[in-house]
């Protein structure tokens, strides 16, 4: 990677430690019955070099949050508002879609769950990596081709020169995900959003991909936002974690703190529900009921219909505020100071 002056490296000296700052993000999507809020007042920031996990069940708004930040939600069916949406020195709330598209490649890129549908089946893998380099860095055809091969080599694709000339269908799931990572790395971005990148893979291949992500992060010092529902993967890769439920952040803390001392009953429930290979005798707990449907959020705490600790105060009124329960540990639970919740030591 000596051919480029890494944009991340250049900016590292000049900008603050925070690469991404999100304050009060609200996302509405158009449903059959009108506009519905799917992300409701999400605020967080990501530091350089850290891996921030976002966990939650399907429909909790974790993917929509990240897609909205990257400006990748379909514009006609989505309304995105935020008090602050700052990526390095770019104010994303003020960018036109065209400007956003220029900013995206060199600053933020995404890796999705399904590498087959994220790659174009009609172009060779090498062309698809080269395209990114030509589009964002104005690299020449020859230069971009050469660097595509370099990138494939970097992400551990064997015989990269030969593989660059092949089409996506000739790659296995794990190899395709490596190609996606190569594309995401192409412009040396400051932030990588990985949305369930290993969910479709075998555990053996998942271990390889997680190892690769760790390596490239270590090398380039980028921030990674890791979206997943698998708490095992979270424990393996994240530094800090946000827990989302029904469109809101309900808890946020450092990795160990969150797993050892969860302060929201939802997180306690998620931990208890994970079947553990190292502790099979434990009965599998499950959180009763289902997450609320979009547009039908319960009053009060959104989790109260499923919460075993719900009291009268939790049932009515607005959603409880996100409170500081301990240093660097926030929770959206009214009863956090009275409850002693069980974690996974």
């Amino acid at each position, binding site marked *: 990677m000596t051919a480029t002056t890494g944009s991340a490296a250049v900016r590292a000296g000049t900008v603050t430690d925070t690469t991404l700052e999100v304050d009060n993000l609200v996302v509405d999507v158009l449903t059959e019955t009108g506009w519905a809020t799917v992300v409701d007042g999400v605020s967080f920031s990501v530091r350089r070099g850290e891996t921030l996990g976002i966990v939650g069940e*399907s429909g909790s708004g974790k993917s929509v949050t990240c897609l909205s930040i990257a400006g990748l939600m379909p514009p006609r069916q989505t309304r995105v508002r935020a008090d602050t949406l700052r990526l390095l020195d770019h104010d994303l709330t003020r960018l036109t879609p065209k400007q956003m598209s220029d900013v995206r490649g060199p600053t933020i890129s995404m890796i999705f769950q399904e590498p087959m549908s994220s790659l174009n089946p009609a172009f060779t893998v090498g062309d698809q990596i080269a395209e990114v380099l030509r589009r964002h860095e104005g690299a020449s055809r020859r230069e971009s081709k050469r660097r595509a091969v370099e990138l494939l080599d970097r992400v551990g694709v064997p015989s990269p020169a030969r593989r660059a000339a092949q089409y996506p269908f000739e790659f296995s799931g794990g190899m395709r995900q490596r190609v996606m990572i190569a594309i995401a790395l192409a412009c040396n971005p400051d932030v990588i959003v990985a949305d369930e990148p290993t969910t479709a893979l075998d555990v053996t291949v998942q271990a390889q991909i997680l190892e690769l992500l760790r390596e490239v992060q270590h090398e380039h010092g980028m921030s990674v936002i890791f979206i997943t529902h*698998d708490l095992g993967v979270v*424990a393996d890769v994240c530094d800090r974690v946000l827990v989302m439920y029904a469109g809101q952040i309900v808890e946020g803390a450092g990795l160990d703190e969150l797993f050892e001392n969860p302060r929201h009953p939802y997180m306690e429930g998620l931990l208890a529900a994970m079947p553990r290979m*190292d502790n099979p005798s434990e009965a599998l707990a499950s959180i009763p009921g289902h997450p609320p449907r979009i547009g039908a959020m319960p009053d009060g705490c959104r989790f109260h219909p499923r919460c075993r600790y719900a009291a009268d105060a939790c049932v009515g009124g607005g959603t409880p505020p996100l409170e500081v329960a301990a240093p660097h540990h926030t929770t959206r639970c009214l009863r956090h100071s009275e409850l002693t919740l069980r974690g996974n030591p």
Partner: protein
Amino acid sequence: MSPSPEPLLTVRDLEVTFSPRKRLFRERIALKAVDGVSFDLSEGETLGLVGESGCGKSTTARGLMRLVEPTGGSVRLEGRELLGLPAKELRTARRDIQMVFQDPYSSLDPSMLVRDSIGEPLDVHVKLGRTERVERVAELLRRVGLPPEYMTRYPHEFSGGQRQRLTIARAIAADPKILVLDEAVSALDVSTQNQVIGLLEELSAQIGLTYLFIAHDLSVVRHISDRVAVMYLGQIVEHGDAARVFDAPAHPYTEALLSAVPVPSPRTQRARERIVLSGDPPDPSRVPPGCRFHTRCAYAMDVCRTEVPLLTPAQGSGEVACHLHTAGPRLAGASVRTLATRSEVPA
């Protein structure tokens, strides 16, 4: 597992061969997706079948149900051979083995009422009068934890977890003895998944159902299975009691597979020894000579590259197909591999 008088299901040397054409006008090649798989299933037990995608675990299930036609071997259900059985007799035999698939969205007909989806196997196998049929469907719905009123609804009105309950209700409608669950809980969120697993455990306790549980999520398999069989490239490389296989894996592949599963506890996860397997499983149309795993095995010896290892008794329970246990170095009368295994100690 103590040998019970007669296993419910006996699978011997099952073989399923596909012959895809690699290129148009080229010779067909033979691809053995399942290559000599044998196991027993005793009444009331749950056998977990694990392995990477493409290892042949689903094809094994489909082969024994003859959803794909096996090219060799034998499948006996209570002593009766299923392979070669004429279509009509096969249909009655299938009443005893039912299957639940991964995707509850595509396994229910969207244009059929729940009542008719669940009632269909009753029409084929039991033939009840109208009111009896409605009563039976209501009872099945109750049994899987859904209100009987749901029988007049359509599948689209249900969530993924509820749909999986419906497919289970349909699978048990005609009182089968064996349920084959092919990634049946894999598409569900963890808390929904646990509700469905709870239901399966309840059903096995109540009506003595026997399960062949196929899944790639090893934590779930460990939780639900009495015995586990590990497949690699179309063959079973190790099997035994779940506790033995998970705590003291005898095959290097099993060991690597288990070490790759991240544990939801940061401290334990950091302390674990991880074995990252290099590369993907080999192309099943070009199986490596000798032990099929030798190309990715950290312990491979010369003999592994030439001789095919046979299943031999594993210390504790079950069997393992690995030269380390027969030709490998020995210490204190046991193979080194067995001595070296340590069970996970949570911090």
